[in-house]
């Protein structure tokens, strides 16, 4: 008998559901996910973006840092399909190069913040004696002023990390860590709220009554039911991470200034909105489409993991 049915012992008596027991939980999830049109579209779009930023540079073979002052602020042309910036750098090459960094930073930082936020939220909601300390910790992080925190972090760790891992990897880790560690609080609060309401519901009581272990109750019953606020946080989190990265690089905490990232391209382009609108449209669109695709994937994932919907 698979794990999926073990959680619902009553279902085993039902022959129709017993037959489903032959399939694995994740197989079910995947089948459900595939039937979700928005989810599939989102997944395809996201994969296309990932593919574009990783394979694109070999098709559009222009150095994102090569500049040519004589060709600054140009519009769309064959040579520069998205125009050039005020130093004559090719915008398409910069969007592609920037996408690699932004996606990596956005996704990793979002996962980190999601992980920390969910763990704190579930523990605070489920383990009585941890609730107080964890909530105080959340309050502390919410209250910390971000900018001085960043300045201190960079002062303490940048040179060490740069020496250990080189300028790029070191800074990447630093940025992901900083963004992750300063953005999990919202998720934690929301997850805790959801856990509080779920844990009093009948099926949790039922599970407890038949002697299910606490850890199993959390992973099997609580987590799937609080997935929707987590998914919302994830979508919002990736956008925040991409934008926060641009703020960091502006403060000198991020990547060196000639490293393009989507957030940074958008920030630098704002004042050129009247001269060369493509400087804001493309990075803005890139960020929006990424966030949109992740949102749809999140929607579909939530539907697919929802035991009530999966049965249908």
């Amino acid at each position: 008998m698979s794990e999926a049915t073990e959680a619902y012992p009553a279902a085993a008596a039902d022959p129709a559901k017993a037959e489903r027991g032959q399939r694995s939980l994740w197989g079910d999830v995947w089948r459900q996910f595939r039937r979700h049109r928005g989810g599939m579209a989102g997944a395809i779009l996201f994969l296309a973006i990932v593919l574009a930023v990783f394979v694109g540079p070999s098709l559009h073979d222009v150095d994102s840092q090569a500049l040519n002052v004589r060709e600054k602020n140009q519009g769309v042309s064959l040579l520069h399909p998205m125009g050039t910036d005020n130093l004559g750098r090719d915008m398409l090459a910069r969007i592609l190069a920037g996408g690699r960094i932004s996606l990596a930073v956005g996704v990793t930082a979002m996962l980190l913040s999601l992980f920390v936020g969910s763990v704190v939220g579930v523990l605070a909601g489920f383990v009585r004696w941890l609730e107080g300390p964890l909530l105080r910790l959340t309050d502390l992080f919410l209250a910390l002023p971000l900018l001085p925190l960043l300045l201190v972090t960079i002062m303490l760790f940048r040179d060490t990390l740069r020496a250990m891992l080189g300028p790029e990897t070191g800074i990447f880790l630093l940025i992901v860590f900083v963004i992750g560690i300063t953005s999990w609080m919202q998720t934690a609060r929301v997850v805790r709220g959801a856990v509080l309401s779920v844990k009093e519901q009948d099926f949790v009581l039922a599970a407890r009554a038949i002697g299910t272990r606490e850890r199993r109750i959390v992973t099997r019953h609580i987590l799937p039911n609080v997935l929707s606020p987590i998914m919302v946080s994830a979508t919002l989190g990736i956008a925040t991470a991409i934008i926060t990265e641009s703020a960091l690089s502006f403060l000198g905490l991020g990547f060196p200034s000639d490293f393009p990232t989507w957030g940074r391209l958008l920030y630098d382009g704002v004042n050129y909105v009247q001269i060369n609108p493509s400087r804001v449209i493309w990075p803005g669109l890139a960020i929006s489409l990424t966030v949109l695709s992740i949102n749809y994937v999140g929607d579909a994932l939530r539907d697919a993991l929802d035991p009530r919907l999966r049965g249908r």
Partner: protein
Amino acid sequence: MKRLIAILAQAATIAVVSAGAAHADRGSDGHLNILYWQAVSILNPFLSGGNKDVHGASLVIEPLASYDEAGNIVPALAAEIPTPANGGVAKDLKSITWKIKPDLKWSDGTPFTAHDVVFTAQYCMHPDGGCQQAAKFTDVEKVEAVDDLTVKVTFSVTKPFPYGPFVGSESPIIQKAQFQGCLGPKAPECTEQNFHPIGTGPFAVTEFRANDVVSLKANPQYRDPAKPAFATVTLKGGGDAASAARAVLETGEFDYAWSLLVEPEILEQMVAAGRGTLATAFGPSVEYIEVNLSDPSPAKGALRSTREGGPHPFLTDPAVRRALSMAIDRQAIVEVGYGPAGKPTCNLLSAPEIYASTANDWCLKQDIDGANRLLDEAGWVRGSDGVRAKDGVRLSLLYQTATNSVRQGTQALVKDMWSQIGMETELRNVDAAVFFGGDPGSPDTAHKFYADVQMYTNNFPGTDPERYLSYWHCDEIPTPANNWLGNNMQRFCSDEYDALVAEMAQTADLAARAETAKRMNDVLVGQGIIIPLVHRGSMSAHSLTLEGVRMNAWDSELWNAADWTRRK
């Protein structure tokens, strides 16, 4: 670019023509809106030396003499400028005697006397006051009132240039009656006085909101009964430079916007809206790259970036420094980042005119081939990755500067130029408050210089560069022992230069001083210790209906606000 220059030229003619037009009455031109993108925090320049605060205060309180737009000292509250010729400056160059204009009144109606001037000196020279303009009073022994309209300043050493105290908007006169209870440690507690100083200037404060807005009205006691033309002024602050320019040039909500370091094509497009114009003035500010002669490698530990830690692995080679300078296309940097607000320069002292050397003008033309040849001859050979190396030392630089979009543009350009001569560059930008701050705990200050080269704009107060040039004396090197205080970031130390510093202090004749200053400039630039890039002007925008603006880089930009008028 051409169009912008044409517009500027046109604006200049308008200004000249309109300067002759006389206006009859005080307050007849209504309201004036001024926008500073950094808001005024306090109206007491002795407690905040920021330009925004000094400029704001210059509408209210005045010095004895100001600098005009050409850098000449002109009387404000003084009747005339004391010189050795008219006997105002003593023969031994150790004292200066100022005569004050008769019948001056503070805005509260009480008479202005020499005692106010003496009090101002006491206020700033108090050891516990933390006066931010204390440098203006360097070497002052005593300030005394000879009579109600005469002030004598005595120095402890010979002062060939005695125009430090009471000259320029950084050193205005405050009212004794108002500030009497605010000496020394009490100074910061006098909020009411610091926010609403009583002055002699064209305007008086009606309401002050720190870091936000100042409201002013015409001073009823101002010495010229026909001025100022504006009845009320709003000095609003906040935001960023580009949007400040937009509020004057495109929407026309404001009449004047200060310090617009914005990429030239953006300003050009805003000027095209036809509501306003740009005004520039060139003072002593020069954007330069300085090289680190000591070794900034982290491996040096506590001796990092000190002379004791050993010489820099490759920047001590004169050929490398020379090549760095030759490879730079200064014209391109100006075009991309500065437009009319910058000129390519090869001098540390680019203004005033008499100090500007011509010995280094070779640098105005980019010479990649020459730089490559120089490095080849010096034995720096290109490796397989295109980066030159000699004896295992790669020409790889860490290039740091303060955060600012124009500077990051310049960094990208310079990196590209240096890559053409086989130099590898890593860019770093640091928040300005950290970079220029003196926190000894921070690794990112300009003084610690934990990088190979760094770039910023430096300048000096007034028109006399003596103190400025003494920055590169051996004794000025920042070290852990002196808590990194010192201005000689390069860790440059030469007996030849130190002798010139001593010579300068003894020279009184202006032409001879200029000659010495040029020689010092040529040592620093010729040896590649300083790589000058851009002679930077201040640039502001003002509405086409605002007349009488005489852009000034030597003093407050608002120095002649009393003469501003509205075109009818």
